């Protein structure tokens, strides 16, 4: 039960060398920017979903990989954002879309704050896991009873927004246009998360993850740091949900159950939770696996489950961890510098 007993993680590795990193990221961005011209609409849809899943996974991993708290009900936050945005667009709340996104994120953060203030001081580990699962299930039940949110059928026929910037209107009705907006939103969000993780605040997250007791005795307010991390994580997850609503144009209860909550967990672990980019790599890999197995109907659960177990047993640091190991072996030295 002691956190520092995770012997399998030998420090955080920097897989991307200073030169390679920017090159890879630029190439990736270029590919994603021109994707609408190269990919068919179905694939493009999956690329968009992957970006949303990547944000979602990053938000979970901020909590787990950086602060050492595992939420098993993260879909609840995602759903807050998705349902709020869906309702705002469907029932035309008369709010600019960017404000809708911001409110969605703030709503997620406020819910996280409420849970955190009441529970997080005492709740970590199993308790937090069960509490987040239970709250998410309860939320699903309540949504299922709400007529305005579509009850069991979900909130469908969500229109895509038009952003009024004052001097010009950005019409995102067409899927290619919304896709580009989504891409930019993803880049901004990922950059913001990158900043959080590498900032002074991020270092205090890591201190709490590594050893909460020690962190307390260097003067870090552990409970406060945890709540802050929970808020950023919840807010970001809600933002991911908010971005998803106009993309899928329907929000359903499928996105609120505890299986949905495991999606970011799966992506983070598959990619490697010890690295910032792990969840992104995981989201891409998972979509790839899913896309590749889409014709083996009925086998997907076995495959996904099997992959999860194998990853935990054989490569607990995920794909990024494996890549790191491989590059170090190729370079022929164990040390980093």
């Amino acid at each position, binding site marked *: 039960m002691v956190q520092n007993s995770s012997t399998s993680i030998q420090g955080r590795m920097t897989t991307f060398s200073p030169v390679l990193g920017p090159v890879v990221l630029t190439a990736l961005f270029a590919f994603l920017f021109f994707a609408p*011209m190269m*990919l*068919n*609409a*179905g*694939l*493009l*849809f*999956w690329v968009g*979903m992957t970006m949303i899943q990547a944000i979602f996974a990053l938000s979970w991993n901020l909590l787990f990989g950086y602060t050492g708290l595992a939420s098993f009900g993260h879909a609840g936050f995602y759903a807050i954002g998705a349902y709020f945005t869906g309702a705002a667009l469907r029932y035309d709340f008369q709010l600019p879309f960017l404000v809708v996104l911001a409110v969605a994120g703030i709503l997620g953060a406020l819910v996280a704050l409420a849970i955190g203030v009441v529970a997080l001081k005492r709740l970590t580990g199993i308790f937090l896991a069960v509490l987040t699962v239970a709250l998410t299930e309860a939320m699903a*039940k309540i949504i*299922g*009873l709400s*007529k305005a949110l*579509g*009850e*069991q*059928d*979900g909130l*469908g*026929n969500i229109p895509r927004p038009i952003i009024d910037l004052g001097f010009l209107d950005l019409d995102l009705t067409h*899927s290619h246009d919304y896709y580009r907006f989504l891409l930019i939103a993803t880049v901004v969000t990922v950059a913001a998360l990158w900043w959080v993780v590498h900032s002074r605040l991020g270092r205090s997250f890591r201190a709490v993850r590594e050893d909460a007791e020690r962190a307390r005795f260097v003067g870090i307010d552990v409970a406060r740091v945890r709540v802050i991390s929970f808020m950023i994580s919840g807010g970001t997850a809600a933002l991911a949900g908010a971005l998803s609503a106009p993309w*899928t*144009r*329907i929000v*359903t209860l*499928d*996105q609120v159950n505890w299986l949905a909550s495991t999606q970011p967990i799966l992506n983070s672990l598959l990619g490697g939770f010890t690295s910032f980019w792990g969840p992104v790599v995981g989201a891409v890999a998972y979509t790839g696996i899913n896309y590749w197995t*889409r*014709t083996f*109907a*009925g086998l*997907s*659960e076995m495959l996904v489950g099997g992959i999860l177990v194998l990853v935990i047993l054989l490569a607990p640091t995920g794909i990024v961890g494996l890549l790191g190991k491989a590059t170090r072996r190729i370079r022929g030295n164990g040390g980093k510098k």
Partner: protein
Amino acid sequence: MMKRRTVLKGIAAGAGVTLGMNATYLRAQTAPIRIGASYALSGVGAPVGTQMLAGTEIAIHQINRDGGLLGREVQLVTRDDKYNSAESVAIAREFAGDGINLMLGGSQTVTALGLAPLAPELNMVAIIVAAAGMPVTHELFNRNIFRTTANNYTQYGSLGRTLIEQNPEIRTWVSLAPDGDFGRDSALFFGRAVEKYSEAASGEKATVLDTIYTQATATDFRTQINQLMSSQAEGLYLGIAASAQISFFQQARSVGLYDKFKAIGEVGNSDITGKALGRNTHPNLWSICHWLYNQEPFASNPVSQQLYKDYVELKGDDFPSGQVAAGHRAAIALFEGIRKAETTDTDEVIGAMENLSFESAGGPVEFRTEDHQMLGLNFYSQMGPSTEEPYFQFNKVTSVDAVEMIEPANPGQPFDINELPQ
């Protein structure tokens, strides 16, 4: 941005020329017609989705055996929508991206709600195979979608009418339904029909008690069963489906609910319930019936006979589920539309289908021009236990013409039962 796209298209076209335009042109005339099918093949919708897929596959097999459509082979591209709306949205987009503009989908309301608004954007003809929700032909209506199944109002009104006409001696009815749009509405439609047709059936208006609600995903119905047992009712509409319905019967049977309720109408599980319960099936259980190969009027219908023959041959199973016909019917609707349009162009096919009539395993059907709702006979079956494998049997099939039970077409507007003339 627009410019760049045009440039890229230009490059692609240029490449096409150098690679030999003749081949491309020729292929358009003889290449297979590709039709997308998106059914729930995993998750809770799988038992139904796989049967529908079988029907569609048989229809494809049949049309190709008869020489194809417009002289071209028909190819089916199948995807699993996992009973998930996001997945069905992705599949429709993938189809569109692959140049497929004709698809069958929406095997459940959840997936139909995601799919329907998308069809115009993707310039597709989308056949909603089995989703019966009212919005599809009302507020979500657009001219790209066609529904080849009865809507909820027609379906559950007809079920109520069938039950009271077949069991006129039952004076008091009650419904057990999941709390939610569908449950409330179907119980309401059922109850209204029972009241409306009871006088004609027995000269006296039947009583319909307040609906008892449960959760859609409940697994324990003891509280509701106790309420049912304590009520005055002898007739029951059961609005819970799939495994929940079977759990209900398991829990209800041992407290004697089968003796108390003389007739039960259920939401659409049909043989799924029969197969699971076998000799413990309620003796007077009425279901929505899509197809029963060995019962009249299906047994003497040539489309039905051929469907059964091909099912046995292709699937190696002698007992097809009624849902097979739903998948079959949807595919035929599309084929006939293409045949009539003499092209696979979206607009032409829509135009052709708007006043199309064709033969299905359940007799002639047609689309209502205004809201693309299919009309025809709707069938209801009565089942009960049997002493031989599979220990349940269908005893009777009745039908109600949809024309008598449907609301006036009102595409674009939400449906409200209280606005209908009584």
